């Protein structure tokens, strides 16, 4: 069989197959597929000396920075001190309560002014910051609970 005829018949065969394929409803044979990729990206800020976590009454946790921008919390040189810094320090009020292991209140609620930005902590590596309103501020299992609220001014 001459090459030209062979090619013609191969082409013809392909056309017949295409017609049969279509007429028999085999258009998806073989299956056609496609793939697309996305990137998943995140930027983790470098951890500071302590972990500052805000927890709202419903249990939602968020970073301090999300609530008190551009406030920042760092551990002071002495382990039992926590330094709360803010470029707009006048905009925050701090309150904390302290209890012993039996949940006994060791000191009455105190409302710190912005000048009292250096607060004595319990020495825990983790400091739980509650975003609750001071009046409804719960005394929970933490030895120290600290509240930071944003002032309207």
């Amino acid at each position, binding site marked *: 069989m001459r090459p030209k005829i062979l090619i013609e018949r191969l082409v013809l065969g392909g056309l017949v197959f295409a017609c049969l394929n279509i007429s028999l409803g085999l258009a998806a*044979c073989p299956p056609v597929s496609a793939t697309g990729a996305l990137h998943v990206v*995140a930027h983790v800020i470098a951890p500071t000396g302590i972990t500052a976590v805000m927890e709202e009454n419903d249990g939602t946790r968020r970073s301090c920075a999300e609530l008190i921008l551009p406030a920042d919390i760092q551990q002071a040189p002495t382990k039992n001190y926590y330094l709360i810094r803010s470029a707009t320090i006048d905009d925050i009020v701090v309150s904390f309560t302290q209890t012993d292991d039996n949940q006994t209140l060791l000191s009455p609620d105190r409302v710190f002014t912005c000048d009292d930005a250096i607060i004595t902590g319990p020495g825990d590596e983790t400091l739980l910051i509650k975003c609750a309103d001071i009046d409804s501020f719960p005394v929970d299992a933490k030895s120290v609970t600290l509240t930071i609220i944003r002032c309207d001014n």
Partner: protein
Amino acid sequence: MTACARLVCLCVCLILLVPGAAQAQESAAIQAIATVVSGLQVIGLNNLNFGTVVPGIDKTVDKTDVGFAGEWQINGSANAEITLDFTIPTYLLTADSSAQMLILFSGTDASFDDETGGGQTIPAGVLNPHGQGVENIGVGGRMYVWIGGTVQPTISQTGGDYAADVTLTVAYTGN
């Protein structure tokens, strides 16, 4: 060999076996009436972006978060049935792979819109990123898919940029 492959071979063989004199014989044409499926295309439109993450605090991006949830566009044959399979990562890694961060996907963390819903915030349905979905492309030949997730950085999570890939594979079912 599948039935389809056998059909191909049979057709080709029949054509090749026709003697040369057959070219002089009469022929008859059959009419083919069908809709030929167009090729599939999956385009990544938006990365799944968690933004800034604080060590020790989980962060979730919902599938409805416009501009943050991952988004694909599927182009194909109108009304064709397709399967959707996700390949999802377990961890995000830093560029040098020296640190990893856990990422979780729930069974409702993906959604789709086949042009019958209201877009990303009111999609037509929910997809499970852990399983295979079977849906139909919209009448306009398009479908959109979104995915959210949750990262769980540890208290001592290393600071820096983390990344991974999530892949969507789509295929016609033939229906």
